[in-house]
């Protein structure tokens, strides 16, 4: 029996205020992108913004990527912990990038929190968190794939006041300016974040003025309860029981690895428990993630399984529980390095995905590229001699599923409304030329439904002394196929030197030097296939060959279809396929 949220207040007014809250979240989100200085924010949309209630429960969040779902509440809760008992004043803004508590991901993600007062009382918080292109540390771009502790990874903002009652704390601004490589970017983004927070504050106050504080607060409860009800209904439809999966994280950046990780998912009528105990302890390299980061990943896949289309708030996650050991690679503790935390965080999500895909096939698909496949390329522009810095994720192949081929060239689960940088924009801004941006049609991921192709993107250096760092996970363990579909292929990076030498393939590589004419070739994975390849209709296989997604030889070998290489007509089925009677 469906339990319905009821309230004494007029239900339509509650609904209208609730919708207004969601609209405020959207407005704050757009404001930030439009004014940001950094491609990582306005193209990758590597940020989130939203509102929480007075206790730090998430009410509405505008997301560009999935990875921040859940971190805003922790930032606010950390702020409340430190500045409870009336130490927060109207006009205060707190800056925080604590990687372990307080909404931790890595130091590059800088959060701002602002209490919203009405009638002298905190009614909500406005909060956002954005990836700053620079927070200092040992490497340009700050996040480093060979850091050995947090101190190498940049400036730490341990929940301190950036604004005191509306007055900027200039000392902090000066410290930032002195410690980061592109201060105009970092501070520009900071101002964009401040403006977005103030927008949220203004709108919430308008709502309180219009409807009264009491009604506003009732709407907040209504919103959270409404989210919880929707989640519980979806939960009730899931198969009950215990589901296990194991996997490996490739590498920690120092050649250590493989690190085994595991999950036990228990679904009951009213709980969804992800138990990661028994996973590998935290490691020397920066591939560790903190507990809060893992929770965000679990939330992401929980939403994918329960109801991908709903607006997320903390009510939705009430049935969710995440258990880990202390100090594991999935719940790292200070001062473990966490720069490239997303690799382990996403591996955690992938485990749940893999455990549940067979039983929730209408919502989940076969394995995908999984890694953010991040690229940091720095150098000087060949025409202006100005320094440039590329910080970007890569698109790759996604897994197939019942009734659907995998998506080709799409950012991984940790990203989302993330945009690649157009070739024409990249060549104007950066000291590189793009030789190729094409699908990586290696024919992996064969199946009744085929895995989506990854891509090849090649940057040719146009000046000397450039440097590229790549973090391509899922380099040793390829995307998994499902229901007799074949596995996909690996993410990998090659360096093609101007003199013809080729180095690689690499998964993780810090600071590879590039000189004029050298090419870094970024190749991403093809996703896993779904179902027996022999079940793919012969005509469709022939069309795949015509389109160059697979070769005629692969059609023969993997799919059992003989395709004429010139006319692309089906000439027959192999004996294997005939024997299997497909």
């Amino acid at each position, binding site marked *: 029996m469906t339990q319905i949220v009821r309230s004494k207040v007029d239900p339509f007014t509650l*609904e209208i205020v609730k919708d207004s809250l969601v609209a405020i979240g959207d407005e704050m989100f757009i404001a930030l992108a439009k004014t940001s200085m950094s491609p990582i924010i306005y193209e990758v949309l590597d940020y989130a913004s939203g509102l929480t209630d007075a206790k730090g429960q998430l009410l509405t969040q505008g997301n560009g990527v999935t990875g921040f779902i859940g971190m805003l509440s922790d930032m606010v809760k950390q702020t409340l912990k430190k500045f409870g008992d009336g130490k927060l004043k109207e006009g205060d803004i707190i800056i925080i990038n604590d990687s372990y508590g307080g909404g931790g991901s890595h130091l590059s993600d800088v959060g701002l929190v602002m209490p919203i007062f009405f009638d002298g009382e905190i009614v909500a918080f406005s909060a956002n968190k954005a990836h700053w292109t620079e927070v200092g540390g040992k490497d340009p771009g700050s996040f480093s794939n060979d850091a050995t502790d947090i101190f190498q990874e940049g400036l730490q903002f341990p929940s301190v006041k950036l604004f005191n009652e509306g007055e900027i704390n200039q000392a902090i601004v000066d410290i930032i300016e002195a410690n980061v490589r592109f201060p105009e970017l970092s501070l520009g983004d900071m101002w964009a974040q401040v403006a977005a927070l103030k927008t949220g504050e203004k709108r919430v106050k308008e709502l309180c003025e219009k409807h009264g504080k009491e009604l506003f607060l009732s709407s907040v409860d209504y919103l959270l309860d409404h989210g919880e*009800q929707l989640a519980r209904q979806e939960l009730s439809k899931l198969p009950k029981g215990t589901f296990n999966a194991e996997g490996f994280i490739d590498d920690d950046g120092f050649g250590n690895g493989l690190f085994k990780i595991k999950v036990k998912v228990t679904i009951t009528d009213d709980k969804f428990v992800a138990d990661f105990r028994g996973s590998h302890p935290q490691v020397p390299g920066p591939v560790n993630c903190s507990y809060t980061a893992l929770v965000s990943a679990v939330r992401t896949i929980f939403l994918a399984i329960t109801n991908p289309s709903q607006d997320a708030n903390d009510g939705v996650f009430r049935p969710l529980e995440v258990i880990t050991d202390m100090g594991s690679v999935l719940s790292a503790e200070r001062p473990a390095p966490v720069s490239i935390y997303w690799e382990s965080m996403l591996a955690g999500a992938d485990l749940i995905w893999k455990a549940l895909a067979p039983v929730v096939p209408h919502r989940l698909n076969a394995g995908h590229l999984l890694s953010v496949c991040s690229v940091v390329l720095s150098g000087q522009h060949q025409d202006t001699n100005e320094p440039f810095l590329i910080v970007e994720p890569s698109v790759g192949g996604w897994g197939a599923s019942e009734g659907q081929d995998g998506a080709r060239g799409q950012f991984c689960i940790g990203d989302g*409304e993330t*945009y690649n940088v157009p070739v024409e924009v990249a060549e104007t801004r950066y000291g590189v030329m793009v030789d190729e941006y094409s699908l990586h049609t290696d024919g992996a991921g064969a199946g009744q439904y085929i895995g989506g192709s990854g891509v090849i993107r090649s940057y040719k250096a146009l000046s000397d002394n450039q440097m590229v760092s790549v973090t391509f996970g899922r380099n040793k363990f390829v995307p998994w196929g499902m229901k007799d579909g074949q596995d996909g292929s690996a993410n990998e990076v090659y360096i093609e030197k101007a003199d013809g030498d080729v180095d690689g393939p690499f998964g993780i590589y810090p600071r590879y030097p590039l000189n004029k004419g050298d090419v870094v070739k970024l190749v991403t994975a093809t996703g896993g296939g779904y179902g027996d390849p022999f079940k793919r209709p012969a005509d469709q296989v022939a069309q795949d060959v015509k389109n160059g997604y697979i070769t005629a030889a692969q059609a023969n070998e993997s799919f059992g279809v003989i395709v004429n290489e010139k006319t692309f007509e089906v000439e027959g089925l192999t004996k294997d396929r005939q024997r299997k009677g497909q």
Partner: protein
Amino acid sequence: MRVATDIGGTFTDLVYVNEEGEIGVAKSHTTPPNFEKGVIDVIEKSGIDQTAIQTFIHGTTVIINALTERKGVRTGLITTKGFRDVLEIARGNRPDLFNVRYQKPVPFVERYLRQEVEERLNYKGEVLSSLNKERLKEIIQYFKEQEVEAIAVAYLHSYVNPVHEIETVNMVKELWPEVAVTASHEVTKEWREYERTSTTVLNSYVKPIAASYVNRLHNKLIENETDSQNYIMQSNGGTTTFNSAKQTPINMVESGPVAGIYGAAVLGEILDEKNIIAFDIGGTTAKCSLINQGEVKVSTDYFIEKNERSAGYPIKVPVVDIVEIGNGGGSIAWIDGAGSLKVGPQSAGALPGPVAYGQGGTEPTTTDANLITGRLSPENFDYEVDLDKVKAAIKEKVADHFGMSVEDAALGIIRIANSNMLNALKLISVRKGHNPREFSLVAFGGGGSMHAPALAKELGVKKVIVPVASSVFSAWGMLMTDLRHDYIQTYIRRLNQLDPSELNKEWISIETQALKQYQEEGVSEDDVLFTRFADIRYLGQEHTVKVPVPNGEWSEETISEVVERFGDLHEQHYTFKLEGTPTEIVNLHLTAFGKVLKPELKRLTSTSSDAQEAYKETRPAYFENSGWVETKVYYRSLFGKGMKISGPAIEEEPSASTVIYPDQSLTVDEYGNLIIETGVE
């Protein structure tokens, strides 16, 4: 006589204005797939003398239909070597964040029809490798074999230097004159290869469709001895000739809807209202757009099929900025999984339509709620209305769920629908830094005037204008349009390093291009009017602000003036400016209007200001705070100049009604427009 015809989903509308300024309207059914038949039908139905048509303006959904129904032609694409997959990779984004089974939009050109040729420019437009013509010949031959009907050409950096695209088009025309071909620089000169390629492909995809449609329509007009100047409405709010419409049909993608927005601006000009919010409610959607200081905002950030769940397809041509939401008269009210009332985006459409239509509709809609609350009367419908059935639907689907009366539930539906529309209206106004108190709201479309007075009050707008012929206002807007072409050239320059003489040359070159195009279209230079904009940002930002900039020659002072203006606009939109931060131009944007003679509006002849003469009846209507109120109802057709009516009141006209709330009042102006004071201080 000027005649405008506008093809809609169900009806094809006609509005004409004769030499005396008299306006007439007609409606007939839309006739897919031979849309031109509906146009001729409606002309005949209107009874006008076809030989007296001097100017014929046409808005059409043929292009958008061909795109969304995938009824275009088999298209081949030629790209720079290494980049044929750009169309398929697109931007790699996944708007439906938590849906891991997200499906990317399928490219309009399958991979085997995307072919690559050696050629390369750098970002400055310098040729690094010349075009491989042998390879090009092979591709053209291959396309012939594959029975391609249209070719799109999109090379890297062609927005700076189109030399290779031009060579390619010339070769295609030489070797295969029959095939339709479009090069990217012909449709857009902005950077970003995916967006430009997508626009080019879509233009090619519909080009033969557009040509044959325009030709058929033209022939029909000639058959009927109509010797008129013929224009087609474009998405930028202006018109173009039949010939140029055939070349770049993608410019007609929003041909119909923008005319109403443009009409609102024209009406504002006549009434001396420079700040307008144009608001249009139809059967399935509500659309709104903000006109600031008389300027209809145009941008190239347009997509088809883009929503929260899908990335859609970008079309980088100038389109009037419209926010559209799935909330119209036919929008369905429903209860979600956790018991909340929602309205839309599902619509009962024209068939079966609202329950009130009695055509088999079972789901309660906004129109049904308006009927139950007395805002509409059963007489307003073309159908026999079964009130009990409507009540039962609202009771069963909404009221029972909340344990409330049918009229409270109906009012709830209206309030939720209004809340959705209010969010859209806020999106274009307050959230862009505009104060609604400084704007008047022009309401049109079948449902615009019904909801506008309440919404305007909520938004903080003081005045609502319901124009004459508000239900066919888009066609009226077309009557009032000028020719318009937009030229947008990506031109990346820092303002502090800008050489005014170099920039002046660029402006002049764009203006020369515009004059040349108008000359070809038979418009004399004296009738061409330029407006310039520059898309500017702080160095490092991605998004730009469109800044109106001066015509004529620029000096150093002009540049600092422009920088200052940009800073103010940035602050208005985003609450802050960054003093001292360098600024950068991204695009130069020239709007060139070809002015045409338009008739003066006719004034009302009746001057009776006694509202009693237009009185129809008194019936109960249900309002938020006052419950059932005996409300006077009036015929609009009997309104005279200066007539005043105080709320609560309802005004009825064919296919629209206006609801005046208890604390609001209505005045009829000299043209017959309804001017409503909303009660906002």
